[in-house]
């Protein structure tokens, strides 16, 4: 027996599977919604992931990068990513036409602890960066509405014309089983019908009971600091506040070392961490 027979290439965690771009919808700025389907996709394959998990997506010949799965596992197809074109890989993905071949590996990471969240009230706070996490989790909770208590969302946008999840928001604001606050940091658009100010300014206006509620914070480190602070001041346990970390990633499988924070690998132990865990990791808060 040669040693290589022990391994089948399909078990190779480094090998991207071929996927096609089914749709590429420009959102705002350089954000795009990519809809993808695996060439050899098993039926309902994407029911298997958890909200908050990520894939490693490759633009062939350019490179590979991590992306949160922006669709909910409650909707089996297509797999959706919200991609912000900021560099070579993301630009190539955002420029890809329908039917373009791309590579996908994953899903990787822990995702949200949905078993724990079931039965609790859920509050999601998001900015544009990080909105993929919010999108996946919120659709999951809405599609399993009876499994959750109250659902609330605060969406903070830099200005009214730059809401990445505008399409999803138009579906969310009309729902009676979800409290939605859309708030803008900017002063433009005097006819903006929604709220103004930072997400943290609206926390106390919500009818939430800290001990019954889990909060998912989706955004930048500054966003986590500001809102984490406000939530703890409101009586939230640090263990009930969930943040999602982004770090440079090369493997997604806990080996390459790029995503390490302290003793954790964001790709294995994260990207979702409690605020308590995150506060105790170096270089995070």
């Amino acid at each position, binding site marked *: 027996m040669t040693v*290589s027979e022990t391994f089948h290439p399909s078990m190779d965690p480094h090998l991207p599977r071929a996927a096609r771009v089914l749709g590429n919808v420009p959102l705002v700025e350089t954000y795009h919604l990519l809809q993808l389907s695996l060439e050899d996709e098993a039926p309902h394959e994407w029911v298997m992931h958890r909200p908050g998990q990520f894939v490693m997506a490759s633009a062939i*010949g350019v490179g590979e990068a991590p992306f949160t799965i922006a669709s909910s596992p409650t909707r089996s197809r297509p797999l959706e990513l919200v991609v912000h074109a900021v560099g070579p890989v993301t630009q190539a993905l955002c420029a890809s036409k329908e039917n373009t*071949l791309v590579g996908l590996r*994953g899903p990787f990471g822990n995702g949200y602890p949905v078993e724990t969240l079931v039965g609790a009230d859920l509050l999601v706070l998001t900015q544009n960066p990080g909105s993929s996490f919010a999108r996946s989790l919120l659709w999951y909770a809405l599609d399993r509405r009876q499994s959750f208590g109250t659902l609330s969302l605060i969406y903070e946008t830099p200005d009214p014309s730059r809401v990445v999840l505008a399409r999803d928001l138009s579906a969310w604001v009309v729902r009676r089983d979800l409290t939605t606050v859309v708030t803008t940091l900017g002063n433009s658009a005097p006819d903006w019908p929604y709220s103004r100010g930072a997400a943290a300014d609206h926390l106390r206006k919500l009818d939430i009971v800290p001990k019954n509620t889990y909060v998912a914070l989706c955004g930048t480190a500054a966003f986590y600091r500001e809102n984490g602070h406000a939530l703890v001041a409101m009586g939230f346990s640090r263990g009930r506040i969930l943040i999602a970390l982004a770090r440079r990633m090369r493997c997604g499988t806990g080996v*390459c*070392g790029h995503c390490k924070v302290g003793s954790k690998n964001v790709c294995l132990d994260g990207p979702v961490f409690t605020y308590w865990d995150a506060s105790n990791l*170096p270089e995070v808060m």
Partner: protein
Amino acid sequence: MLVKRPPTDRPVFGQTTGGEHINPSLQPDRAVSRILRKKDMDAFLESVKAFGSLYGPRQVGPNQYQLMPVGDVAPVSAECRRTILPPKKFLIPARDDLCHFSADTGYRAAEVYTGERVILFGLHACDIHALVTLDLVFNGKYPDPRYLARRQALAVIGFSGTAPDGNCFCHAMGTSHADRGFDLFLTDIGDEYLVRIGSSLGDDMMRARVDLFGQVEREHIDAYKERSDRRQTQFDDTVVEDLPQILELEHDSPIWRELSERCFGCGACAAVCPTCYCYDVVDLVGTDGITGRRVRQWDCCLFQNFAEMSGGFNPRPNRTDRIKHRYYHKQVHFVERFGRPSCVGCGRCVEACPAEISLKDVIAAIRGRSG
């Protein structure tokens, strides 16, 4: 799931490194020791070549050794303290293809190693511990097929017979002796080697020249113990007891900034370290513009852009942060994750550093009263 479930019966490394996994209890005379006379060493190594390509430490310069093919003439230098590059070069090549790609057909896995068995002769206990440490990382949640193929093809003949030098601190790191991770382990006990057999492959190697091996007698046991006692006294007094806790306390020590002013960030320490495994991934496009290959190559957390993300955000923008990251990864975070440090005290980083930074001195300084 995009990634198929890893096989549940994946190889577990330990006593057996040759690929032949035989339940020891089924073997009539299991793991035993034998005696090999020093003058028979060359004849024995010659016979070992029948089991694969044999590599051993060869002198390449004054006090410089490399693991190189054992040829017909030049003897292996058993007196070598440490090779410039550690055995990891046989498991994680400095550059390795992960897959091939084409814009038309997507990705195809690169071949895993299917070559001959590689037999490494002369590995010291610290390097054997380093291999077992790498296994923890590469045989984790997502077993790494490229690493494992090479690992399964690797056989290890350990060796202990060289007195430590001032850069060694394996004793402090608990890696000066190995009880697993080898096929054979030879200990110099005077005129003979005590040969410990660690796997059925090692047993096969011994049996191929069974005429060279004698039984262990009382005098050999006593000679081994005497040598063991003597060896305990050959190491200096580097202390790493509760080092993770002391490092936690000294997180803000000025030592880290002082180190950063001396370190060039050249990455030599990581390249020569037997347990440094971080890698980068790059796509190389061929001249046709549509096909190419994805390779992984050694990386180093001391490089400025190691953790940098788009928009320039860098969790460790200063060299002080990066130096701390490397030390804390090895001595604190790896312990938290795997129960042991990822430093085996081999002293290679001390020898390789152009800034003459010594990990031993850093440990001593951090344990000192003014931190």
